[in-house]
């Protein structure tokens, strides 16, 4: 297989409500930032992949809204529905397919325009489940309970994730919710669905992210330092919760294993320097880290408490503040990729971590992490 690299990234600020902006306005901003970052013009891009969701956008064929503003006119283009990491995956295969060399990938979402409880209720099976009225929060509460029961984890342990990530966001200019908070603040916030309190949940957000992926033959032709894609894998678990072990995430373990194998990583705990993962809820950061093999099962909270995942710890996790500090649903995974790219290039500014050569970015589709996408990015080829 040939190799490919990410040679440009662009992010809008993540905000609670970009009322002045349409999807196209957000895409225009993110795409131009990515082009500027790469030192390219739109003519240097030979194909475009947009990522969006018809449900979240309130529009069938939601990609229609952004094609022109993303520079797709007269170019080969397509649209992935789901998290941006999956859109970027498709963009990556196109850059390697022999048909193209440079793929522009965008992902956008405006949570402010819809009612997320109804949108996520529509993810449940219409015949057996939907009428019972669960949504993403109540579903993830069910997973959190299963995970706590299995591991003995306490709500206070989960709350530490919120404290760390909102704190990290203080240094990230694109984050929506930078906050200096304590475990006590989290524990006193509104209980939404036991055991998840308001500060255990990511906010409703608007944002758009763009990345440019280039085939190895052109990756060094532009001004930006390439960040190489070393490993990439995704995997889907059973749909019905009752078919899965909800306290675990088998599909993430599989995706991570395959991504490490592709990257030639033998000991991820030692070889990964920075992680940006999909912490839609506090417990998820811990569970995902464990399933990725970056902590023993049930032990991530202990490492967190010891400062292991802090910005200045041995394995910084979500130095950007993660989803807890801003969660534009479909774009969220693409933001993770862009953040890791910035970290590896040393361009992350105030939230830059020390010594990062190899990074992991992660995205999720479906309820309670049914489907995961894991990226291993590297400074070196």
């Amino acid at each position, binding site marked *: 297989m040939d190799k490919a690299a990410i040679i440009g990234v662009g992010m809008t600020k993540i905000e609670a409500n*970009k*009322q*002045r*902006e*349409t999807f*196209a*306005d957000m895409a*225009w901003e993110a795409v131009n930032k990515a082009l500027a970052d790469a030192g390219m013009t*739109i003519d240097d891009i030979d194909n475009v992949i947009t990522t969006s969701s018809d*449900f979240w956008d*309130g529009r069938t064929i939601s990609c229609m809204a952004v*094609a*022109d*503003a993303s*520079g*797709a*006119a*007269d170019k080969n283009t397509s649209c992935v529905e789901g998290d941006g990491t999956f859109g970027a995956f498709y963009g990556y295969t196109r850059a390697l397919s022999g048909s193209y060399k440079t793929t522009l990938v965008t992902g956008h979402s*405006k949570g*402010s*325009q*819809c*009612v997320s409880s*109804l*949108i996520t209720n*529509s993810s449940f099976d*219409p*015949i057996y489940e939907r*009428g019972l009225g669960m949504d993403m929060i109540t579903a993830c509460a069910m997973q959190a309970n299963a995970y706590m029961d299995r591991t003995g984890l306490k709500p206070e342990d989960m709350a530490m994730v919120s404290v760390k990530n909102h704190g990290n966001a203080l240094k990230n200019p694109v984050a929506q919710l930078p906050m200096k908070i304590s475990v006590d603040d989290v524990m006193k916030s509104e209980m939404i669905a036991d055991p998840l309190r308001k500060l255990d949940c990511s906010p409703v957000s608007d944002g758009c992210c763009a990345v440019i992926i280039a085939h190895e033959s052109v990756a060094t032709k532009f001004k930006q330092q390439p960040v190489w894609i070393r490993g990439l894998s995704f995997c889907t678990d059973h749909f019905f919760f009752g078919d899965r072990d909800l306290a675990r995430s088998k599909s993430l373990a599989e995706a991570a294993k395959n991504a490490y194998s592709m990257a030639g990583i033998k000991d991820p705990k030692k070889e990964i320097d920075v992680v940006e993962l999909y912490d839609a809820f506090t417990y998820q950061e811990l569970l995902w880290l464990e399933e990725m093999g970056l902590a023993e099962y049930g032990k991530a909270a202990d490492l967190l408490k010891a400062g292991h995942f802090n910005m200045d710890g041995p394995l910084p996790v979500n130095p950007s503040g993660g989803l807890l500090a801003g969660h534009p649903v479909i774009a969220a995974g693409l933001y993770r990729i862009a953040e890791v790219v910035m970290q590896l290039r040393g361009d992350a500014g105030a939230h830059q971590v020390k010594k990062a050569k190899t990074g992991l970015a992660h995205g999720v589709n479906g309820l309670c992490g049914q489907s995961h996408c894991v990226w291993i990015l590297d400074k070196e080829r």
Partner: protein
Amino acid sequence: MAEKEQLIIESGDASQPFAYAVGMHGSKFFTETRDNKRFMGLKCPKCGKVYIPPRGVCGQCFVEMNDWVEVGPKGVIGTFTILRFAFIDPETGHQKPVPYGYGFIKLDGADTLLQHYIALEDESKVKVGARVEPVFAKDRKGSTRDVEYFRVID
């Protein structure tokens, strides 16, 4: 086989509300239509094409547009149809009244077409190239409904 009971699960009147951002280009257009009964398009600084509905970017040239020009209010029918079959209006969940005339109007001075209703006072006069004018709503609130429909003028 014929007697087997096959159940249907109904969604009932469930619906998804959305608060779509009009964007600043659209907001300016609707403000002008609402307050001054005029249509404003945006001109591409590169290819000179005048776009309506207004939007921030000329897709073909990939440049931002800031040059507002007044277009219309009269124009010609670029193409059209007359809708005669019943279907559910997704905004209301109820059947939309038919028939109705529906056209793509090329407003004077614009290069792209605006979709709107066309009055069916005399069906034989509704054809490609016919001249039309807008009929503005009395109570205008800042949406496409500020124009009730276009009508053919002789």
